[in-house]
């Protein structure tokens, strides 16, 4: 099963909580600053990347689509942005 990637541009998160409602397995709210954290992610400079399986795709696409500040992007194995597919 091919892997997808979530990219999270955390700096502009407003802590609305939507992503954690849609995909609690991949997102949690940080206890110290109230912004969302992408679980099991690598990153620096406020850009975080995590691999997810296709089973997790639909929930995270909803998270990306509902993000009010558009800072969640989902890429397929070829690097194509499939956030809104």
């Amino acid at each position: 099963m091919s892997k997808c990637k979530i990219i999270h541009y955390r700096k502009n998160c407003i802590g609305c909580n939507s992503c954690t409602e849609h995909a609690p397995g991949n997102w949690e709210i940080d206890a110290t600053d109230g912004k969302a954290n992408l679980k099991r992610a690598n990153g620096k400079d406020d850009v975080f990347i995590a691999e997810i399986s296709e089973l997790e795709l639909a929930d995270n696409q909803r998270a990306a689509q509902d993000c009010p500040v558009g800072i969640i992007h989902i890429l397929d194995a070829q690097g194509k942005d499939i956030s809104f597919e």
Partner: protein
Amino acid sequence: MSQAEIMSPAGSFASLHTAIKAGANSVYFGIEQLNMRARAANNFKTSDLPEIVRICSENNVKTYLTVNTILYDHDLVMMKKICDAAKENKITAVIASDIAALQYAHSIGLEIHISTQQNVSNIEAVRFFAKFADVVVLARELTLNQIKKIIQEIKKDNILGPSGELVKIELFAHGALCVAISGKCYMSLATDNASANRGACTQNCRRAYRVTDEETGEELVVDNKYIMSPKDLCTIGFLDKIIGAGVSVLKLEGRGRSADYVHTVTKCYREAAEAVAAGTYTKEKIEAWTAELATVYNRGFWHGGYYLGKELGEWSGEYGSQATKQNEYIGHVTNYFRKTSIAEIIIETGEIKIGDDLFATGDNTGVVKFKLENFFLDGVPGKVAKKGNTITIPVTERLRINDKIFLSKDR
């Protein structure tokens, strides 16, 4: 008549410097994500607070920090951090709306202003919030008579804030109005999951809409498709009445606006407030201020807004700004010689000629406006400068390397 405090928006260091130079008595700004401009690209960080306070205290300008979004449980830690940082950095007051923020700020002895997001519309609400706050921003939907009555009641009943002084009333004097009641709009949340009350408004009310009867498919004939976009508030024409009613603080909207906007609006309202206090507020001056205000971003002015109790329904007829002037990027400052007050500028696009109105803007410069009266190009006086040219011009006020240069021209 005492002079009203002019409170200007500071969405960036450039706007902050500009507001101070243009005569603001106080500035308001947000840090981190818990403020009503959370979507804005250049929000200040907590680490900017010492510098902001330093600049303001050197200029005797008060500092107000906004913590006025709705708060969820997971925001409480950050809210407390912001309030603690405000206290530590000696911010004059926080502007808050959620009870959690009011309670916490009060518990650590911070001065509090009640945000317009609380929609305070009656004297009993003022009495309640006086337990926490020394200044209350009234709802933008009240009429002048309602405001006047609230202020009279405050005096009559001697309603005091935590400082022991009479609660002061603050009003929005200029800038954007919402189609919905202050702090109660869910339109952007409903369509884009972007809550206006978390500072993420997508301003979808500003767009053009069609109204169709679903049953018949017939479209309603509306003469203006911008059915939900009110014009901007402009009170400069009756500031005497507002100040006469006892309003102490005049807030200018626009943390998302440019430094140029902040400059013009602050300058006009400061002059107007001074004129009211000095008894030199005239019709001619009002006309001049109104024309000047129209040069910067606006959706057309609703003179009076709700305040005069006018019939509602002054809707914007166009998308975007109806400013009479537009700004065109020209180039940037490559050097400034302080001894001789000469700026060296590279023209990167377009062209400028003698007589043009220019302005420079930058984080530490704010906004400096000047007329191009003479300049040198390749060592000789020039008339027109084009893309690629580096010119030197006298500019009395100090500019800084990398300040951006704009041409201000009629639309």
